[in-house]
């Protein structure tokens, strides 16, 4: 998929560099904060003057951040493969009968609270990373399935008719016409899904998946607002950074 071919606008190299400025700034801020949290002890002291410890030290922020990205990345990748795949399958003539079923299943996945999924998944899958990946996968499917369906449905029927009438095979119609035209809407769905999951992944800390949710849960348990702030700040920055990357990726949305 070539975003430039969709928007049709030609950007100068300088303008294109500037587009990536915002994501780079957010990423730099995120890494800086993860590396230099210890330097901000004075700041968190203001929040919790009476606590013995104000910086979360049970694990390094870098490794928590890495874990967080890994869990969200794995869940999102699976959700994209499953969600886009299912939506494509049910918009083919052979799979059309399953369209209502798939869109309902995806909706149910999102109405089911992730906490409940965790509670059900832990007995089956044990503690650790696996149950949270399953919960995020289910939770993240809906926006992807819904947007892929909407993206494909939004394509002008006449474009579809012309594509078939010109003698394109079903695969060629999908790859050369449907997917490129639906790409902006599909990417928007993936963006929503990933951004929501970055926040939701913090719940993993309650079932022993160590990630940026750890300082938050620990802060709640010990009544230490400084810990909560540290986890929340990093999660927030990660979400903004990833979101601004998507902002640049989505065609027709260059700035």
């Amino acid at each position, binding site marked *: 998929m070539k975003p430039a*071919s969709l928007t*049709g606008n030609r950007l100068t190299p300088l303008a294109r560099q500037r587009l990536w400025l915002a994501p780079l700034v957010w990423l730099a801020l995120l890494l800086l904060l993860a590396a230099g949290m210890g330097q901000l002890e004075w700041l968190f002291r203001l929040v919790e003057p009476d606590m013995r410890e104000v910086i979360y030290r049970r694990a390094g922020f870098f490794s928590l951040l890495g874990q967080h990205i890994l869990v969200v990345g794995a869940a999102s990748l699976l959700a994209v493969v499953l969600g886009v795949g299912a939506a494509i399958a049910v918009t083919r003539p052979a799979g059309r009968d399953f369209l209502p079923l798939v869109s309902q299943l995806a909706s149910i996945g999102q109405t089911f609270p992730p906490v409940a999924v965790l509670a059900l998944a832990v007995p089956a899958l044990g503690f650790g990373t696996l149950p949270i990946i399953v919960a995020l996968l289910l939770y993240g499917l809906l926006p992807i399935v819904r947007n892929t369906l909407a993206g494909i449905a939004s394509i002008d029927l*006449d474009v579809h008719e012309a594509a078939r009438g010109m*003698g394109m095979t079903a695969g060629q119609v999908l790859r050369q016409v449907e997917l490129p035209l639906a790409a902006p809407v599909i990417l928007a769905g993936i963006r929503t899904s990933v951004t929501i999951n970055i926040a939701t992944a913090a719940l993993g800390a309650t079932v022993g998946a160590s990630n940026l949710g750890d300082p938050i849960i620990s802060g709640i348990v010990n009544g230490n607002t400084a810990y909560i702030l540290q986890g929340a700040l990093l999660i927030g920055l990660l979400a903004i950074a990833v979101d601004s990357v998507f902002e640049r990726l989505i065609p027709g949305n260059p700035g």
Partner: protein
Amino acid sequence: MIELFDVTKRFGNDTAVDGISLRIEKGELCALVGTSGCGKSTTLRMINRLIEHDGGEIHLDGQPVRNFDEVTLRRRIGYVIQSTGLFPHWTVARNIGLVPRLLKWPKGRVRERVEELMQLLGLPVAEFADKYPRQLSGGQAQRVGVARALAADPDILLMDEPFGALDPITRETLQHEMRELQARLHKTIVFVTHDMDEALALADRLVVMHQGRVVQQGRPIELLHDPVNPFVESLLGGMDRGLKEAALIRVSERMLPLGPRLLASERIAYGASLSQALSVMLWHQVDRLTVVDEEDIPIGELSLRRLLGAKAS
């Protein structure tokens, strides 16, 4: 050559096409006309198998279309639709080159062919090749649509109300170009329209459809003279039939050589139609016109009597 033998198509309980038989000769432009829902579009789309027929047989050069792989079949048949169906994410050049690329022509040959077609359809390459469909006017977009259909030089062209969405002036220009194009290319064309003037102007043969059946077919002039029933008569214009027929006849076919009399003051081009000549006479309240050639040189004359009397002969 396209032949339909007793072809039927049903959608549920509705019979869209009810046992029609047609024979469209090579190099002929055949217009399917009729009111909305008469089955003319369905008939067209059964030829390239976008819709499969339920009964009867459709032959292409003597071969049943069912014997062809549908993708191969469609790449051999040009297809033009009213809304153009251009791919919005592709440039004009890429849209036109679609079928040659599907047929795996070498890149250089595709490019040459695209440029050739753009010139043929009056789309300057430098100006239009890199434009996107949304940057085109309706007329330009339909020119691209026609170019795309002609790209792989198919023998057969299916056109589904190709000029139906255009304003009257653009439509007339494109109809005119279409006539000239067909005079050069001699494609076998099936042309669906509900615009009787368009059908009369373009068609070698007219097929009038009503409720899934062929009501009458023949040369435009035959239908005008001899409609089989009031439906065909009203479709052909009812009381305006005289003018419609006059629109099909050129002044050059009816003019007389210049006589000894003085030249009439009002002039008409020899390529104009009798209806235009009549209009000029009405307007200037004269009963005689001087017929001129392209260089405005008098080559004959046309009297009202001759104009009227010619019809009887």
